[in-house]
């Protein structure tokens, strides 16, 4: 049991980060905090992919003498793409927040709803 828990420690980190990020997105009214939560949520998936790529006793996937087992490099490449997507999402989200701040003078969700409904 203990071995199962410790042996999968990176997956536990993934789960904790994923839930923390997801909870932040749902529970926080501040738009910046929402984007931060979204980022933590996405990063947990990056970790998940990298953990999947690990091969027992495998080394960095660079061919060299004396090494037979290499980690799977494909998941790293996939996650590079996902990181780019994540960066783009964050940039777009932050840009929207700047414009929301200009239009409403606030980045608190409740404030914004109040202003829209009072029209």
């Amino acid at each position, binding site marked *: 049991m203990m071995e199962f828990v410790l042996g999968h420690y990176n997956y536990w980190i993934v789960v904790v980060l994923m839930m923390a990020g*997801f909870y932040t*997105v749902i529970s926080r009214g501040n*738009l910046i905090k*929402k984007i931060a939560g*979204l980022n933590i*949520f*996405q990063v947990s*998936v990056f970790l*998940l*992919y990298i953990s*999947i790529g690990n091969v027992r006793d495998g080394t960095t996937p660079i061919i060299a003498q004396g090494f037979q087992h290499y980690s799977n490099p494909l*998941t790293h490449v*996939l996650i590079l*793409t*996902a990181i780019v*997507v994540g960066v*783009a*999402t964050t940039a*777009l*989200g932050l840009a*929207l*927040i700047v*414009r*929301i701040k200009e*239009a*409403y003078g606030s980045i608190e969700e409740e404030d*914004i709803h109040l202003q*829209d409904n009072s029209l």
Partner: protein
Amino acid sequence: MIEQHLSILLVVIPLLAAPITAILPRARIAWLLTLLITWSCLLLAVWQLQSVLDGNIISYELGGWAPPWGIEYRIDTLNAFVAVIVAAIAAITLPYALRSVEQEIDPRHIPLFYTAFLLCLTGLLGITLTGDIFNLFVFLEISSLSSYALISMGRQRQALTAAFQYLVMGTIGATFLLIGIGLIYSETGTLNMLDLAGRLPSVFELRTVHTAFAFIMIGVALKLALFPLHLWLPNAYTYAPTVITIFLAATATKVAIYVMLRMVYTVFSIGFAEDTPLNEMFMLLGVIGVLFASLSAIYQTNSKRLLAYSSVAQIGYMVLGIGFGSVLGLTATIVHIFNHALMKAALFMAVGALIYRVGSSHLRDWNGLGRQMPWTFAALVIAGLSLIGLPGTAGFISKWYLVSAAVEQQNWLIAFIILVGSLLAVVYVWKMVEVLFFRDANTSTAETREAPLLLLVPTWLLVLANLYFGFNTELTVDIARSAASMMEASAP
């Protein structure tokens, strides 16, 4: 020469054109280039559909890398058909866009608007064509990111919050899809859909695969705005620029439905899905979605929001079709993907023409406009009848197949609910007709002229298509049926 590279050209042409439009100095030139690109995409998509109609399958290896190692584009009847829908709607929207965009978007931003539009088109076409599940995620994000930007360009400030809300929900959906893809990759070691279909059955009993299936289904359901995950849709459609509402309403959710079909039928196989409560869930959410969204539509006072809720209801019908799990149900879904794109694009175009003249989408500002703008009004009525499902319109064909699928399984309750949904559609379409025709014109709207020809012609093209495909069902139903039976047959 071109024929070999058809599928990849469909993605590469709009992708390359996007940065070029960004640096063009004049708005009109950017529009002209986009127009050219969308029409050439339509030509290529139709050509591609013709070459797979007889049951051929096009397999294109990107960069000459053989699948399953390289990315493969795999075209059968279903995705060639969806690609034609996307390209056709883009091509018909573009002539309409010229005037509408000039009125709604700051002239300095118009070239960038078309850049984002082309990227969105690239993403949507890419999703339909690719045979690689990770490539699908990337294209999904390309189309989503560009549509967030496009929605935020609406005139009212609520467009910004609507885009932000969509960004948060859309990213959660896409990340769920990514988690699911990672989990099945960890079990099978492949990302090629066909290869996955071959390897997944040996690990079906693993809990990882079930978890992956759940993640993928929820992620895609968020994208297709399945009730109760539709919360982003009404705001996004209401506040987006008119052209974007037309384009997204007719294509984005339809492409997501296609992804759902592909995942359930090709990747996981229907045998696997039947062991999960998927079909029951689709039935339940489809039924609630139809009733709830139609009722919500009745109470709306903003025409765009009214039609947005109606879209959620229509998605309910499509999901119901999948839920039947029969060839007839699938046929109904695929036919409805096409017909709903026709009717919703026509409706939003007619509404957009009214907005173009009056500058408001609120029903209270529309009193008596129908008599000033008879052509727009007539288009709205005919497209509305198609939405209701009156015989002789395209909408009737979808409803007919959906009800037949319900009757085939002797599911009278569902058949009854589909009819109730149509009756509710009568109520909300009538609401618009009543305001437009039977109320006295406000003093401010009494002098309104008919919409310009550039808006009317695309609208009427779609309206006539609604009538044409209501009488001539050969093309749509035959394609849908052959796609549906092909997917059912692929089940082991």
